[in-house]
């Protein structure tokens, strides 16, 4: 915070501000306590209840967790799929989004706000609508198949309802979550630093590796974390584009909560996911200065 100008103002602020900050934080804190912390506590409590029962707080067992780590169970396969999908999504998006983020920061100039609106807008369209559009594109007699037949080919490739399609759907859905943090990160790189490096004779590759990438890293890191975490919890892609050919972990949790009515098992799975995501997120957050990233002057 900058130095306060007036001599008595400084004193007044020292007395007033801490209380004001705490008071301003109160509504959000209450909401997140009741709507985020409490449900997580509830699933932790449920995860120790007798399997297939609703005896929360009246029974204590580790059976649910034992079931998850039992290798004869196929749930580890779901964890594996979700993990692989998430890692592949992050890797592909880092490559796909970088040129666009670079363009928005350096090249597009006055066009860059229009480009960002075009990339933000799909976030406001329900993901199932957009994913279903892909089904219409790739399905037999759909847009691709029909067009290829119309110009004399045998028809489109049969790639709907395969794991590759799920991955493509995830890359598609989560692009903005990589792109925008990455753009924020690139905007943090001082342009005169790049000019200075160039004047001193650095090659383009050197500038990128030694100046641009390290300085943009906080933003890139947030983008990677965000897409990874969303990828771990993704379920709509696997259901709509995967045609349930692969069961991802969030789908397993949903099945436990709905069809099989086994809330304790579903809770235990959710707790494992929450712990994993929580530890990862807090570890990355610990390395970041959010004030700087979001543009505090």
């Amino acid at each position, binding site marked *: 915070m900058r130095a306060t100008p007036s001599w008595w103002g400084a004193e007044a602020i020292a007395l007033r501000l801490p209380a004001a900050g705490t008071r301003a934080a109160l509504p959000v804190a209450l909401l997140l306590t009741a709507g985020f912390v409490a449900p997580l506590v509830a699933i932790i409590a449920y995860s120790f209840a007798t399997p297939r029962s609703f005896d929360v707080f009246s029974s204590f067992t580790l059976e649910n967790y034992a079931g998850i780590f039992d290798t004869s169970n196929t749930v580890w396969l779901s964890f594996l799929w979700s993990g692989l999908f998430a890692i592949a999504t992050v890797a592909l998006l880092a490559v796909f989004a970088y040129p666009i983020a670079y363009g928005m920061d350096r090249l597009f100039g006055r066009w860059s706000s229009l480009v960002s609106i075009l990339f933000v807008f799909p976030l406001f369209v329900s993901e199932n609508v957009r994913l279903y559009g892909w089904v219409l*594109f790739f399905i037999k007699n759909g847009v691709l198949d029909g067009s290829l037949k119309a110009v004399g080919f045998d028809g489109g490739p049969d790639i709907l309802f395969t794991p590759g399609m799920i991955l493509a759907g995830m890359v598609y859905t989560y692009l903005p979550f990589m792109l925008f943090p990455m753009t924020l990160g690139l905007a943090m790189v001082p342009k005169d630093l790049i000019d200075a490096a160039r004047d001193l004779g650095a090659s383009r590759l050197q500038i990128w590796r030694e100046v641009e990438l390290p300085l943009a890293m906080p933003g890139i890191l947030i983008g990677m974390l965000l897409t990874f975490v969303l990828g771990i919890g993704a379920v709509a892609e696997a259901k709509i584009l995967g045609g349930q050919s692969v069961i991802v972990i969030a789908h397993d949790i949903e099945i436990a909560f709905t069809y099989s009515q086994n809330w304790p098992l579903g809770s235990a799975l959710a707790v494992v996911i929450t712990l994993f995501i929580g530890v990862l997120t807090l570890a990355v957050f610990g390395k970041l200065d959010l004030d700087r990233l979001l543009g505090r002057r």
Partner: protein
Amino acid sequence: MDINARRTRAFVTLWTILVLVAIYLPIVCGALASLSKGRYFGFPVREYSMEWWGKTVDSIEIGMLTRTSFAVAITVTLLSVVIAFFGALAFARYDWKGRRLFQKIVLLPIFFPQPVLGLALLLWFSALGIQTSWLTAVFAHLVWIVPVVTLVISIQVYGFDPTLEEAAYDLGCSRWQVFREVTLPLLWPGVWSGMLFAFLLSWGNFPLSLYTAGADSTIPKWLYAKMVAGYTPMVPALGTMSTLGAALALGLGGIVLYLYRRRQAQ
């Protein structure tokens, strides 16, 4: 411009256009499916008609769920912008002891998979004995949307000069006057963007509504149910209408923001 820079520019521009085409392609496919006559979609479209749009508009069921979607989105917008406004001040304006921790905690719900959050909330509501309905969906949306709106408004708050508030106090303004005459007008673009985000994110939200809206259905929830079982061309028709509605809201919101900025600049 040297040849390398020109090549980079050409590549980046081309790539961005390509990705944008891919992003809007499925939305166009949905629109095509909604405008083709007949029960089943085939491409190239043999005959275009507005038949399914008409049926969608006339449907009583769809009218009801549109109203529910509206009720949820409006309530979420109003509540979240108030909560997030103060949240943003705590996030970015004031220096207080718990600020760093607060910033991280606020971001956590954004970094949390929504389907899992929805199920955890469902379990929590049932543990409390609360019947799920559109009101519980509002609450669920708030948990996720308030942090997003807090972030959006915070970005505006970072560009805000706190000495202006202090000057107003020095000139003898009351707390309420400072808020109404200084703080709010300066932060208004952020507040407005936050409201837009809140409305549109709630309007399009599917995973939270799926588990926490109970017997009430929103547009995304109904669309999903029909995609899984019982496809009719009303699915792409309603999906396209909902998309156009969101685009309209975004466009109007953007125009208001633009006019406001221009008036401020004068």
